[in-house]
């Protein structure tokens, strides 16, 4: 099939950037979306043009590197699918496809479709862990975890940190990402001691990074390639309320 691509080209962080049109021909429906871009890039290189820069790595839907908004939808039209696993059979001959980077102040564009997602690491640094220095661990079976909790924790822990939730959110919020980690660790008995500080610190880091606030618009979960449930955000809110109340109680007695 033959397609028209309109791709966001931006030389560097300072450049203003613009959409540029390209024709691609003889696209096989068995190609992945990224392989289609590979073909375009090979041609651009030989024609002496700059190839399109985009992030990608594992190409099997788990590393979370690939990140492009395709026709206004992060990772494109297929649900529960990263860009690297999206195949061209989803499109039809003659289609025009718009390809843009994640757009968020907290994810500044580095070049073309490549953005800096370091803000996610910052949120994890603020408390997205359980403090368990190597060697200090008790026997694994010392603390049983109810299967339902373990399964729910796993569901949240599946987050690949790609940032599609931010790209999809009308507020540019990273609350689904933050909530996924809060939920994962909050459901494990090992995560209880740091539960209060975790939610307060991670939300503070989230805000600090320049993400927008969550207004429960519900755009994130449909865009999430792992289908992280919206309910995780409810859990974050509840933990936040409880932790804030406890903390104000503590300061009151301490004061």
């Amino acid at each position, binding site marked *: 099939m033959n397609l028209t691509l*309109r791709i*966001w080209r931006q030389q560097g962080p300072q450049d203003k*950037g613009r*959409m540029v049109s390209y024709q691609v021909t003889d696209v096989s429906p068995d190609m992945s979306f990224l392989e289609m871009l590979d073909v375009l890039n090979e041609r651009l290189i030989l024609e002496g043009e700059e190839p399109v820069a985009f992030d990608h790595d594992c190409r099997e839907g788990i590393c979370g590197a690939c990140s492009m*908004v395709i*026709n*206004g*939808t992060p990772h494109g039209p297929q649900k529960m699918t990263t860009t690297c696993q999206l195949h061209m059979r989803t499109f039809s001959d003659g289609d025009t496809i*718009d390809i*843009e980077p994640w*757009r*968020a*102040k*907290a994810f500044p564009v580095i070049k073309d479709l490549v953005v800096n997602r370091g803000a996610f690491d910052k949120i994890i640094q603020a408390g997205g862990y359980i403090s368990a220095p190597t060697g200090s661990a008790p026997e694994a079976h010392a603390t049983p975890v109810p299967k339902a909790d373990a399964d729910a924790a796993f569901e949240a822990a599946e987050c690949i940190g790609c940032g599609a939730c931010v790209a*999809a959110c*009308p*507020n*540019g*919020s990273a*609350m689904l990402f933050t909530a996924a980690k809060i939920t994962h660790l909050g459901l494990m008995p090992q995560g209880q001691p740091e539960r209060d500080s975790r939610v*307060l*610190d991670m*939300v*503070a880091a*989230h*805000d600090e990074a*320049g*993400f*927008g*606030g*969550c*207004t*429960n*618009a*519900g*755009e994130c979960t*449909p*865009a999430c390639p792992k289908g992280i*449930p*919206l*309910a*995780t*955000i*409810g*859990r*974050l*809110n*509840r933990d*936040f*309320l409880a932790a*804030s109340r406890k*903390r*104000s109680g503590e*300061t009151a007695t301490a004061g």
Partner: protein
Amino acid sequence: MTASPIRSTVGKKILMAVTGILLVLFLVLHMVGNLKIFFGAESFDHYAHWLRSIGNPLLPETWFLWIQRAVLTFAVLGHIWAATALALRARAARPVRYAHRGKVQGSYAARTMRWGGVIILLFVIYHILDLTTGHLNPVGDKAHPYGNVVADFAPDRWYVTLFYTLAVVSVGFHLRHGLYSALRTLGQQTKHGERRARAFALGFAVVLCAGYLSVPFAVLTGLVG
């Protein structure tokens, strides 16, 4: 020691939820009062006057009303302040817009909260000047609110009814997302609960809309007059 929770985006959302719920409770009482119109002018006017004397004799005349107005004003201002702060933040969080806007995956109600809120605010200002202070009412007789209402929605003043309808529908949309959102914000966290919360919000919004719209349409059709 972290900053006060209200400084955070989640804290603001909680403020919106709490103030929103206060306003919704008021809307329910207000609607129940409105429906008194179907019991006739006397009943309606009596109810209106009673509002001024709630709490009597413990509280002096109209004190309750002023306390209630203060609470509502505080709720409205808090709600607007948080909404504005979050909206400004959202704008700043996406300095470059998408060239291709995707279709809405969540709900339209959610995407129209901000404009809907502005419409509702404008309506509330008009509504107070119309039926509370009487300045914009064709009759404006404080002693006979029933008459004011009937005059308001007279067929030749169709544009008032239209504006009123638009505002009430906006409230409906606002509540459909707002109620669900408030429950989520206050910690609703299961998938099953999410479905129930959405259904509740939708049902609530529909009932409220129907209740409020029944009055002007009753006047328009001559059922009340």
